[in-house]
């Protein structure tokens, strides 16, 4: 029996300083991951099965029970601007989105959004 796991990741990030006092950053990541079992071959003869009280064996779908397939997006956007000498304003947005395409005993699909603001004082 064969088991196959695969994952693919794409990511991109960039920093842009359009002005001396402003810096913009962005990151995007995408991951697709999957795992699956191959068909289980149950090759016991009917003659043997006939001797069993419970002879109704069937593993034809068992390989599908533990399949995994998920997609994940990671996005981060941030900006830093100089407001005065030694003082910067910082803004960022962070997203994680997980899509459980083939749930395994629990649907793990979920999402987290975080928005952050701050003032940075550099001594």
């Amino acid at each position, binding site marked *: 029996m064969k088991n196959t796991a695969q*994952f693919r990741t794409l990511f991109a990030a*960039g920093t842009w300083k359009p002005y001396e006092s402003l810096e913009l950053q962005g990151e995007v990541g995408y991951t697709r991951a999957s795992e699956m079992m191959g068909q289980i071959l149950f090759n016991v003869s009917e003659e043997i099965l006939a001797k*069993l009280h419970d002879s109704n064996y069937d593993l034809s779908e068992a390989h599908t029970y533990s399949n995994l397939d998920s997609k994940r997006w990671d996005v981060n956007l941030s900006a830093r601007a100089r407001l005065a000498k030694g003082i910067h304003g910082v803004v960022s947005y962070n997203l994680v989105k997980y899509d459980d395409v083939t749930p395994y005993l629990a649907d793990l699909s979920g999402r987290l959004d975080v928005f*952050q603001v*701050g003032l940075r004082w550099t001594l």
Partner: protein
Amino acid sequence: MRPNVRLTLLLFASIVPAVVWAQLTGSVQLGGHGAQEKDNPARASEYATTQSGPDSAVSLQYTGQGFYLGLDSLALSSERQDHALTIELGRLVRSHTTFSKLPHRLVHDSLANLAGAIADVKIVYATDMDPRARYGIRYDQFANHTDIQIPGASWLTISTDFREQWRQGHVQALSTSHCYSCHIVSQSRALDHHTKDAGLSATVTLGNWSVKASASTRDAREREGAPLRLYERAQHPALRTPLFDDRVTYDERNGPLPFNWYPTQEKDTYKLTVANVNFGGFSFLLSGTTSELTNTHTGNKVDYDGVSLTLARKLSPKARLAVYLRTYSFESTDYFYDSPEPAAVAGPYAGKTYRQRYGFDPDYLRQSALDRDVTEGIVRLTYRLGKLTTLTGQYQARQVDRANYQVAPDETTTLEQKVKLNLATRPVTGLHLQAFLTYADISHPFMALNAACNPDPLQTTPAPSPLAPGSVQYYQIHDARVADLTASPSRFWEARASASYQLGGASMANLSVSFWDGDNDDLDLTNWSKTVQAVTASVTWQPSEAIQTHAGASYGKRETETFVCIPLMDG
């Protein structure tokens, strides 16, 4: 307040800020964040805080006359923090302290697959006592390392290490009661696991020689009690009568019993290290460690003794030799398992135990699978083929001689040998190429001996039944298994290559490719094989001072093939 006291305070209050201000560098960020989660947090917020509120990020360094204080602090919420504090007093005392908090959200198994019945006789079902519970642990850790070195005796450094880790939260605790039916119960289990490490060491340095002696102790314990389960009465699944009392070691008659329980652990470690960076042209490191680990509840102990030696020297302007040797052993206390042996209360064998009925002896002396003597070594020769090209050849071997666990009939020893080649070159300016090739041969790798497949699945009994004398018991099916199984290769190839090209300035392109192919055809009835391949490409492009970009992609695939067996039994 007396005037001189007031003046002293005034002086102090004036000097300190002035002094501090003059030498303080770094940054302070204060702000706030709003977090919003949706649906299941186990993946999207696995290690992230989901709490909204104020946050801060501080990085401050203060350097005074002989005094240094460095603070790096990130406080996102009550569950996600990282702090590091470095204090140096004239470099006589150098102390680094960290404290961190990290949430780890865990999956809540729905147990939705556990529902099945065959003719209302063989039944499996599950009960989730806390279906809406969210599981997760918070890892908190405090650690400190301090060096003390005195100018008059600078050859001596005294060091202390302290670490305390807490793993607190709630986890899903499952327990299974069987025979009458298979009933899996899920409970929310509070966890408060605490590990404390404390160590003291002394390092003596004389010329190029240094000798370090250290002692450390660990205490790991769980402060929450284990959950309890009333295991259901063992009954014959078809007849619903207590014919199976002799087949279980406990059930509801024993009252609620603990499960998912962690013992308290104590560990003492002593270590001696001798080093010399130039000992007759060799860099030299000799290290010996001995430790004793105790499960304080059962009294089980594990003794570890290990010695390692690392040597390296330049053989010629173009050649370098490196050698690593290590030997270590584990020795554990044996444990005699004296199984409870209840008697059947009904049926034709009422009053008899399972041993009396089937001749099965459940008692045994548990000898640890950990006990072993291991010897391993690496010999590596690096040769510089040109100014920018090196070729490295490496031979690596490891022999594991287990005391109590067989990896083939009457065989307890595994010998693993690896040959590696590595070529690294910079053929043109900006281009760096590396290629690795490994071949490994493992004789008698770790495996489960006689793990599967009964060649005569039905035995000879036409109608197995607990009521039928001589009927087939599951332990007999187990004992008759013949196929060896494993998840370890007896040989494998690994090839890796990477290239990086400096496109100019800070722009760069990278490509990495790896391939692993292993199999085990030394098994008696079956084969096992695995291939792993991965490719990663990335580009960093900086078209101007103001713009920097980075992009990449990676792909990985693992294929494993194994033989699968299922026992056939009326039971």
